[in-house]
């Protein structure tokens, strides 16, 4: 816990404290918030890296010991996910692209794991961190807009790249000029298409962020109930219920992010828009 006091006595402080990233770089020394762009949320980066490292470790280990005959255990699970991702890609992606498969797979697994950090009890990791002198810790990387926008922006860059690669620079420009209202309303078209294009990454990022942030907030609110022993059963029941429901949410959000990425990139590949 922190200097803001116990959850019961200062619920607002408790929640705000939990939603505060561990800042480094250009930070406000008093509020500990980022004071400009050049600040790093160390907790977000740390958990992002840990989970990415987990994925890399298991990918490497599995990739080296692939059994082509009778796959067992872990390989079965990964094969099922790969098959699942491939099915989605086949359903919505025209043509073929060597990067789309691993991209979708990585988004699905990484986002899922980052979301799954939500299921770790909200006070556990901050409590451990405070024990080793780290006062602020926000555990779920996807409740940080920087993470969701990082993913969405990467996808956006790929969207633009493939738009230009497939349609050519002029083809992509034409899409801005003559879509959706034909050649007589070019200024309107440019604005409309620009909004349409920008809406893709923004919607991706905000949807994931919103869902995860709300989920985290609800966990915090449930955690606030711990002001008396007689409320404990209620808290446990609510927490379990929300956690179980949240399993669905985190999977669904990871899946939606993956699917929309594939859809957007598929639109970038579709020549005749």
């Amino acid at each position, binding site marked *: 816990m922190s200097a803001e006091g116990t959850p019961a006595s200062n619920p607002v402080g408790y929640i705000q404290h939990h*939603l505060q*990233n561990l800042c480094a*770089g*250009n930070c406000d020394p008093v509020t500990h*918030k*980022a004071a*400009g*762009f*050049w*600040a*790093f*949320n160390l907790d*977000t*980066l740390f958990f*992002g*890296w840990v989970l*990415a490292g987990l*994925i*890399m470790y298991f*990918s*490497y280990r*599995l*990739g*080296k010991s*692939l059994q*082509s*005959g009778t796959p067992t255990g872990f390989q079965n699970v*990964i*094969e099922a996910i*790969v*098959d699942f991702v*491939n099915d989605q890609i086949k359903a919505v992606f025209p043509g073929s692209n*060597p*990067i789309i*498969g*691993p*991209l979708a*797979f*990585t988004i699905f*697994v*990484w986002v899922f794991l980052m979301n799954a950090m939500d299921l770790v009890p909200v006070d556990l990791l901050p409590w451990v961190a405070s024990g080793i002198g780290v006062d602020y810790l926000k555990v779920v*990387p996807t409740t*940080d*807009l*920087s*993470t969701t*926008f*990082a*993913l969405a*922006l*990467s996808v956006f860059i790929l969207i633009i790249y493939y738009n230009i690669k497939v349609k050519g620079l002029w083809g992509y420009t034409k899409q801005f000029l003559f879509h959706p209202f034909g050649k007589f309303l070019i200024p309107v078209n440019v604005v409309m298409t620009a909004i349409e294009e920008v809406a893709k990454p923004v919607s991706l990022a905000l949807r994931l962020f919103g869902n995860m942030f709300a989920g985290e907030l609800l966990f915090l609110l449930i955690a606030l109930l711990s002001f008396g022993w007689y409320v404990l059963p209620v808290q446990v029941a609510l927490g379990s219920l929300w956690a179980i429901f949240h399993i669905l949410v985190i999977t669904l959000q990871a899946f939606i992010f993956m699917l929309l990425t594939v859809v957007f990139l598929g639109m970038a590949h579709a020549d005749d828009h």
Partner: protein
Amino acid sequence: MDINATLLGQMITFAVLVWFVKRFLWGPLTQMMQDRQARIADGLAAAERGQHEQELAEKRAKELLHQAKDQAAEIIAQGQKRSNEIIEEAKDQARQEGDRLLAAAQAEIEQEANRAREQMREQVITLAMAGAEKILAREIDQEAHKGILDEVAGQI
């Protein structure tokens, strides 16, 4: 909650992660799965081909069996026919042999009869001669009539 330079860090992490997954997991895994798919398809095709071949072989075996039965029946029929022929031939031969033996026996019998008749004739002559001798011994000179008697004996 604002966006800050964490964004860049996460983007780099994401890019590295995608590259890593593609290089070490997705690439080998999908390749392996494709190979397996091909192998399973091959296996199924081979199984089907094998079954087809077995059906053909069974059909062919049945045909061969049928032919063999036909041949066996034919051989048996031929054998029976041949044995009948042999029996007929043997019968013919036996009949001919019997006839020949009969003829030979008859010829011998006739020969024997002829010889006996000859002997009898000689004996009759001898007897006649003896009788005549005895009669003539009294009446004629043996020397004087010998020429006549020889002539008679030569005429017999």
